[in-house]
């Protein structure tokens, strides 16, 4: 799993058909280019409404771009960071970056290393906060990749992440992760962890 691309199957929401896809174990220039070319414009349309009352337009869109590129460039070549992408129909459908330097916080596994999901995002057209997400299964494929990596690295399937507010139910209910509550050190996002047992159940 750690080297070449591996097959994934998504579901087309409207037709219900199976859509063949691949999981890449890195985030390359093509994925960043897709992010710039396809994700950002779609995202900005949605954000235009919100932005009306807030931060001046001159400030924001560049900053999102900056942060992503900035972090990607800084991490390049470092062993502790791994990128993943799901590609279908020649376009990046989801991105994830993980950090292998983290320890678990859940008392049952405190201090033990886990795969920490620093960032996970699906393409705007796959988000369930728009009318009909195009493909389902992208997020799951990425979480599966994180758990697989955790097993490969001897971390027993343990993973951790900070969930966006709207995603909490996915991690808690669909993935069966433990909810450690809002993290005041991290934008008050809820922090979730998956134990070895939960990982086994998740992969079943």
């Amino acid at each position, binding site marked *: 799993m750690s080297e070449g691309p591996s097959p994934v199957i998504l579901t087309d929401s409207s037709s219900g058909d199976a859509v063949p896809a691949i999981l890449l174990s890195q985030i390359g220039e093509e994925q960043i280019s897709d992010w710039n070319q396809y994700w950002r414009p779609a995202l900005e349309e949605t954000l235009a409404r919100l932005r009306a009352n807030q931060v001046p337009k001159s400030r924001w869109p560049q900053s999102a771009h900056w942060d992503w590129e900035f972090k990607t460039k800084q991490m390049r070549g470092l062993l502790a960071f791994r990128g993943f992408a799901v590609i279908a129909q020649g376009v990046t459908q989801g991105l994830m970056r993980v950090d292998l330097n983290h320890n678990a916080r859940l008392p049952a596994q405190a*201090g033990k290393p886990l795969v920490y999901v620093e960032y996970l995002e699906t393409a705007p057209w796959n988000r369930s906060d728009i009318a009909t997400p195009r493909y389902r299964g992208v997020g799951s494929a990425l979480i599966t990749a994180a758990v697989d990596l955790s097993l490969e690295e001897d971390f027993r399937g343990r993973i951790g992440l900070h969930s966006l507010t709207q995603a909490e139910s996915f991690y808690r209910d669909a993935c069966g992760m433990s909810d450690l509550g809002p993290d005041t050190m991290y934008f008050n996002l809820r922090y979730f962890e998956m134990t070895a047992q939960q990982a086994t159940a998740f992969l079943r």
Partner: protein
Amino acid sequence: MTLNLSEAEMQALDELSVKKDLSKTAVLRQALRLYQTIEARLELGHKLFIEDTLQNDKSELMLL
């Protein structure tokens, strides 16, 4: 690649291996990852601080 570790080093490796529930190789991998990450940050001019949460004291970890 053969590692030449002293007794004390082997013992430390053993202890970490048990504590972290990792094989010895995995412990060394973690050490390498952490070392490389820290070096990369230091090269960018960042500094590494350790916080003593009990004493509410933060100090710089000099890694020159």
